[in-house]
């Protein structure tokens, strides 16, 4: 993420900045701990005049929100796609550069409903805030789309042995299984054991599982693994994407989806700044957010496959990709789905 | 003092925690096959000396800072504690130090490690049981539940298993009933006579110590203040008064009479 932000700002600043203003970027590490993040926030904001802030965890985004509103001088985006944050009333000065977790589920379920109407779906998620986030709304969406959720399986955080959970999954015999709340483990073992048992279910994942290198690390289990991704992959060749070309020039080896997230976030933030300045307004949080929300059918240089709009705090767009074990790449399996 | 010395302690100084000096230039020797008694008041440094000899000081943050200790002619400084044991120097520590959650038999088994690397026949548990029949009765029981005397027997029994040439005995009579003290000391004398084991015996009960020993040292504040053959020591005025509790007339003084009267020792003044 760090590298992505850095690179976009480099492109921007090398190109003369926004209306002659350069953007200064200050980074702090926080170890995903709320108090460390708050400390970093205080430190940075007491030393610099900040307009754009990128924070990490959901916890931090929630913690800092009142402070953000109080200051009213900046907008913030974060690594979290938590559903709760996608509420412009509660979090007026925040946004995320992609769909929230529930929207990701929505995209997946829509795809499923189209492929196999009335399919049986199972959710497998970790017992964390991250894992639980989209489960209840996801179920509602499934119902709307006339899909049956046959099983919801919770795994304790950090668990490695999932044999019993796989047994449960086999009993439920779903057509599609969606994993959420994990990066890698225990998905591979889950899939391997399920395949050994002769299950035919299609396995799917959400953003943080979907990086190419992560899926590759699933080994045999990766074959055919699907998931939702709002951005194009680094190597994605279909369609035109001048921005991706630029990235490929700057960095010759594969860049992760996290990099892209950082990159896109920086881009959207810069766009908000530009629009605010264009309107001749001061760079306050509310103005910046208004600038951001005025984005309609905006072309991200092809990073999102379609022009995007930001109606609220999120960018509810994504596409289903499927892992091809011969190409060792995620290949598109659907069109861009806009919610 | 005649005979070759199994143990020769020369001008030893010991310091604890790099600050507290406990032994200040102490010398003594234990001749082959004899029992030497070491007396002295609490804190004089008797146990410290024994630990210095068996190289166990380091465990308690103590160190020998001067002098030398030779066991059978070799300087012990370079030997690890267990190495010394395997060469035949066995330390029966103060307070018995048996392994409470092992059985009696396992305690003896533990002592067989002292035989490792030595050309000796297998350990002889029966010898121990013949000296201490009580241990045989309780050999399957946990040592922690033995009575004080039985634990002392076990501690000495472990020494026997190790077939040492020198035993350092630290207060074997501590907390023992009078009859047991007699028994244990009889056995100590028997072991010495029958197995030819030399001993350095630390004791508070001077009377019994003198009964088995041939030579004695008296320690105060980390230094030897008097020494000599036992028959000479028992005639010394101060030894009689402070260690044996004998009044001027030769009879034992009563504790009821001492009350507030106190005389200072000659060797301190």
């Amino acid at each position, binding site marked *: 993420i760090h590298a992505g932000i850095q690179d976009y700002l480099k492109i921007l600043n090398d190109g003369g900045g926004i209306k002659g203003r350069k953007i200064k970027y200050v980074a702090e590490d926080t170890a995903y701990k*709320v108090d460390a993040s*708050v400390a970093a926030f205080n*430190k940075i*904001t007491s030393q610099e005049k900040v307009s754009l802030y990128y924070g990490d965890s959901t916890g931090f985004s929630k913690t800092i929100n009142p402070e953000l509103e109080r200051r009213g001088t900046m907008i913030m985006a974060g690594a979290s796609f938590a559903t709760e944050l996608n509420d412009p009333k509660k979090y007026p000065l925040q946004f995320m550069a992609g769909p929230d977790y529930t929207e990701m589920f929505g995209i997946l379920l829509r795809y499923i409903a189209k492929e196999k109407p009335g399919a049986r779906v199972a959710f497998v998620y970790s017992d964390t*805030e991250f894992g639980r986030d989209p489960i209840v709304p996801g179920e509602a969406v499934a119902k709307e789309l006339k899909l049956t959720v046959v099983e919801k399986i919770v795994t304790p955080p950090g668990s490695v042995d999932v044999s019993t959970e796989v047994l449960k999954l086999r009993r439920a015999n779903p057509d599609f299984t969606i994993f959420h709340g994990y990066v890698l483990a225990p998905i591979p073992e889950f899939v391997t054991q399920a395949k050994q048992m002769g299950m035919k279910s299609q396995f799917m994942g959400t953003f943080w599982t979907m990086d190419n290198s992560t899926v590759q690390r699933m080994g045999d289990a990766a074959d055919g693994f699907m998931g939702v991704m709002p951005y194009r992959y680094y190597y994605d060749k279909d369609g035109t994407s001048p921005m991706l070309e630029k990235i490929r020039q700057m960095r010759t080896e594969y860049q992760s989806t996290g990099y892209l997230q950082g990159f896109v976030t920086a881009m959207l933030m810069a766009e908000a700044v530009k629009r605010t300045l264009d309107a001749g307004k001061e760079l306050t949080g509310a103005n910046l957010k208004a600038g951001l929300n005025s984005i309609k059918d905006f072309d991200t240089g092809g990073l999102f496959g379609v022009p995007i709009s930001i109606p609220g705090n999120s960018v509810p767009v994504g596409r289903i990709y499927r892992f091809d074990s011969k190409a060792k790449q995620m290949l598109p399996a659907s069109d861009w789905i806009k919610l | 003092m005649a005979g070759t010395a199994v143990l020769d302690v020369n001008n030893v100084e010991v310091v604890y925690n790099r600050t507290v000096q406990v032994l200040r230039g102490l010398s003594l020797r234990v001749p082959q096959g004899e029992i030497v008694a070491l007396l002295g008041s609490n804190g004089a440094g008797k146990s410290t000396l024994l630990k210095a000899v068996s190289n166990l000081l380091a465990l308690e943050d103590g160190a020998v800072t001067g002098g030398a200790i030779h066991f059978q002619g070799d300087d012990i400084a370079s030997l690890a504690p267990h190495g010394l044991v395997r060469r035949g120097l066995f330390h029966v520590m103060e307070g018995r130090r048996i392994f409470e959650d092992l059985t009696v038999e396992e305690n003896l088994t533990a002592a067989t490690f002292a035989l490792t690397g030595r050309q000796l026949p297998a350990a002889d548990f029966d010898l121990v049981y013949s000296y201490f029949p009580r241990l045989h009765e309780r050999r399957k029981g946990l040592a922690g539940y033995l009575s004080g005397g039985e634990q002392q027997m076990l501690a000495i029994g472990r020494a026997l298993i190790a077939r040492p040439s020198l035993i350092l005995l630290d207060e074997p009579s501590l907390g023992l009933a009078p009859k047991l003290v007699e028994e244990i000391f009889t056995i100590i004398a028997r072991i010495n006579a029958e197995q030819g084991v030399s001993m350095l015996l630390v004791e508070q009960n001077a009377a019994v110590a003198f009964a088995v020993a041939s030579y004695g040292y008296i320690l105060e504040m980390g230094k030897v203040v008097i020494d000599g053959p036992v028959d000479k020591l028992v005639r010394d005025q101060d030894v009689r008064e402070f260690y044996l509790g004998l009044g001027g007339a030769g009879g034992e003084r009563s504790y009821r009479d001492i009350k507030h009267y106190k005389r200072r020792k000659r060797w301190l003044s």
Partner: protein
Amino acid sequence: MRIGTLKTSYAADEALFDSSVQRTLLVLLALAAVAFPFVASPYWLFLACLCAINVASATGLNLLTGYTGLVSLGQAAFMSVGAYTVAVLEIRLGTPFLLNLLIGAGLAAMIGILVGIPSLKVKGLYLAIATIAASVILHFLFSHWSLTGEARGLSMPPARLFGISLDQPFSLYWLIMPVTCLMVLGAANLLRTRIGRAFIAIRDRDISAEVLGIPLLRYKLTSFAISSFYAGLAGGLWAYFFRVVTPESFPLVNSIFYLAAIIVGGMGTILGGILGAVFMTLVPELLKFVANWATPIYPDALAALAPVRTIVFGGLIVGFLIFEPRGLAEIWRRARRFFHLWPFRT
């Protein structure tokens, strides 16, 4: 020992700060604490508050572990009890913050007593594990109970005093600092009475303490209660400070952090708890500073920060235990002695 201070009464000898130099230093320190918020940036104020909260909690743990000898890995869990209680009260009832803090601490103390009950039978590290069990159960409760907002936790309004809301490090400082000072002073007082002695006796040899007239269960539970009261209060302050409480706010690592703080500071001394908590809170900040400074030379410094911090945290614990088992407090004492006797060195 200070040379040349003659005590003429037992009262003087029993006083907490037994020399005029010490008292002068204390007054200076207090003045500095009052002046601090007016000169420091919000960042430093933020850190000061965080340190104070950690000092409060560490002092509580020190009473339990350092003085009573009952190892607990549940301090963070007790804090979470205080924090959640405060949050729930603030959101649902909007009662005054002092009352909320006290209720939170009281509830934590009650839970502490409950957790302490096995301590009569269960000893040493078995007990430490039992406290982990309690943390796990509390964590489970908080992350599945609708009252505590389940996995997503609670966000709460700030504390208010005379209509002013305390939502800035500057205003919070005036809430947190005095409370912490009172807590530390209370602990120091406690330790010079029969209760403190009973704690130490239990630590050193619990079975004989009983025969000397100290009811073991009652004092072990008292110790648990006071320590978790402290934790609860610290947790309440934490809640007002961050204004969001989630199940992940008080993980097991935090309990370890407090244990580490009292070890690094020096177990069984009040000063140790303070020094340790402050030190351990500031070290990560220091590392960040170093990393930022090193970035030009070594561009990946920031990325390496997280693992390095973990390593340093572990290394500090290990290093202190091996090289200075009596902690920072001992270093402080040595330094003091050195300056006293200077130029006559001992």
